[in-house]
């Protein structure tokens, strides 16, 4: 592990920002720290950078304990949420700042800054001031400035928060590609699950100062480890009385369940291939969602959400439909149980 956190505790007054946080990051990975605001993700990032000191626990970078090493000497690059570009310096001087501090030779600085300007696609903007740049360009300058002194670890605090939704998508893939090109171990903080899923190799989900789950985006999506992870990732509908859904039984200790729209399949009653595993419902509402239809369906007193292809059968509110639910995540106190539709399993076994 290149970066390691061991049992980190951090309090701000009565607010517990980190509560026994431990995780490791392998060299060369791009990690997303994902969580709602106030979950302590930014605090973790700032402690790794050396901008905050943990109350207890160890932080290791490259196998060395860095708790007592100042931010300047940890060899990390940091991209701030609002970029913190120096307003009175040109793009060139901003990027060169870290190198001039290190008293590098002028020729080297010029070469290095030019290289980064090319890498970040800022050619021709060297003499501009930060306020003469667009949001995306500012982010690139902040990125180049952090990379200039050749850090071993790059930390980014909500790198896309200050950018318009339109440009954000573009920048995500750009950032992912560029970090890949540079090959630097990177950790970024975000509250946006789409962003984390799209950009990160691995995601660390934080909540209330604790780490909930660590894994690849698909892994977390398919096998959420905690109720929080199950609810936070993907589109989730919480169902309390899930025992009334056909093929599922209420288990003791699991008070509710998460149902994702993609676990639900809707057909006309007469076309149902698995009549034993499905149940009847009524369409309550049909919403056009651009690439699909969103159906709200009442099934034994529970309102479900399902997606339906635009090319499939046409439904109107009031239509009777057959609903097949093939999976649920049952939520316990701290654990999640993935459950398949029991009747469907029996049926398939029977017929095959």
């Amino acid at each position: 592990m290149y970066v390691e956190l061991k049992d980190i505790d951090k309090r701000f007054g009565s607010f517990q920002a980190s509560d026994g946080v431990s995780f490791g990051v392998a060299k060369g990975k791009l990690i997303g720290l994902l969580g709602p605001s106030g979950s302590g993700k930014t605090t973790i990032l700032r402690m790794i950078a050396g901008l905050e000191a943990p109350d207890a626990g160890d932080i290791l970078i490259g196998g060395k304990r860095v708790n007592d090493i100042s931010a300047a000497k940890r060899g990390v690059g940091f991209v701030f949420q609002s970029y913190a570009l120096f307003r009175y310096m040109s793009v060139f001087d901003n990027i060169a700042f870290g190198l001039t501090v290190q008293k590098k030779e002028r020729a080297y600085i010029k070469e290095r800054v030019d290289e980064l300007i090319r890498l970040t696609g800022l050619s021709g903007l060297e003499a501009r001031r930060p306020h003469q740049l667009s949001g995306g360009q500012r982010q690139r300058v902040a990125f180049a400035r952090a990379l200039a002194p050749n850090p071993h670890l790059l930390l980014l605090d909500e790198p896309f928060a200050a950018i318009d939704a339109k440009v954000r998508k573009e920048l995500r893939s750009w950032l992912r590609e560029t970090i890949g090109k540079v090959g630097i171990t990177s950790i970024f903080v975000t509250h946006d699950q789409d962003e984390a899923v799209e950009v990160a190799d691995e995601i660390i989900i934080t909540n209330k100062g604790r780490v909930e789950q660590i894994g690849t985006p698909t892994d977390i999506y398919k096998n959420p480890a905690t109720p929080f992870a199950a609810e936070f990732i993907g589109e989730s509908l919480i169902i309390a009385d899930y025992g009334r859904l056909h093929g599922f039984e209420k288990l003791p200790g699991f008070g509710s369940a998460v149902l994702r729209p993609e676990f639900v399949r809707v057909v006309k009653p007469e076309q149902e291939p698995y009549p034993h595993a499905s149940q009847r419902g009524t369409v309550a509402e049909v919403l056009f969602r651009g690439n699909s239809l969103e159906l709200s369906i009442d099934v034994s007193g529970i309102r479900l959400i399902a997606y339906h292809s635009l090319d499939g059968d046409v439904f109107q509110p009031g239509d009777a439909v057959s609903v097949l639910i093939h999976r649920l995540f049952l939520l316990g106190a701290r654990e999640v149980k993935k459950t398949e539709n029991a009747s469907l399993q029996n049926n398939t076994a029977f017929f095959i």
Partner: protein
Amino acid sequence: MRVLGLRKAPSRRKGVIPGFGLCMGVTLSMLSLVVLIPLASVFLILKDFSLHEFWNVISDRQTVATYRVSLGCAFTAAAVNVLFGVLLAWVLTRYKFPGKRILDGLIELPFALPTAVAGIALTTLYSNKGWVGSLFERMGVKISYTTVGITIAMIFIGIPFVVRSIQPVLEKLDAQYEEAAAILGASRARTFFKVILPEILPAALTGFGLAFARSIGEYGSVVFIAGNIPYRTQITPLIIMNKLEQFNYPAATSIALVMIVFSFIVLFGIHVLSARVNKIAGGGAGG
């Protein structure tokens, strides 16, 4: 109908909040009565005064000497104030120490203390028998009744302007700038001079201008310590006062006009300068 339509247009522009006519009426008439008409009357007095006479009065050797004393002392005082103003604003925004709130409150003292009281207190303190003056007297330095004394009184009167200009800028300055510089390896000193100083420069300039303008015009706290020695410690407001006491109104008004014009130039200059500095960085703090 047409008339109605015409009347509606301006009222729509002003919105539905009532009281425009009343407020403008009261504002303009009070402003005219108290400020504009009296100020304009200055020119009425000068109408019997030829340009030649006017020039003779304002370029008289003794008068010119007062400009030199006023400007020189005010400039020195404002410069000293910028130095200590930056220091005080920094200390008050960045450090925690016992008595900080009291120190913060005291900055405002020169605004609250009647200038005449400050004047006699400073004069007595810095005279050759005063607590401070006697110390300097032993080293052969006189303060009261010299330009040094005038400068000290002007420092007293100007310090709040500088501190209060810089303090809000420092308070609002995002800690991320300093953190960014620190992560990139910059020392505290380098961070201050390269990153923070440019940020507070426009505010420091404004503070300098306000302190400078106030010091030039200041009377109460300076008049006692100045001593009114022609050519040496006579300040411009004092020579106006002397001319008034001699009932030489045209002369007093002429010099007053020079002062009015000059203070406008200073304030305008500061305005232009800080607008330019702001433009380089692109608008307000944080932008």
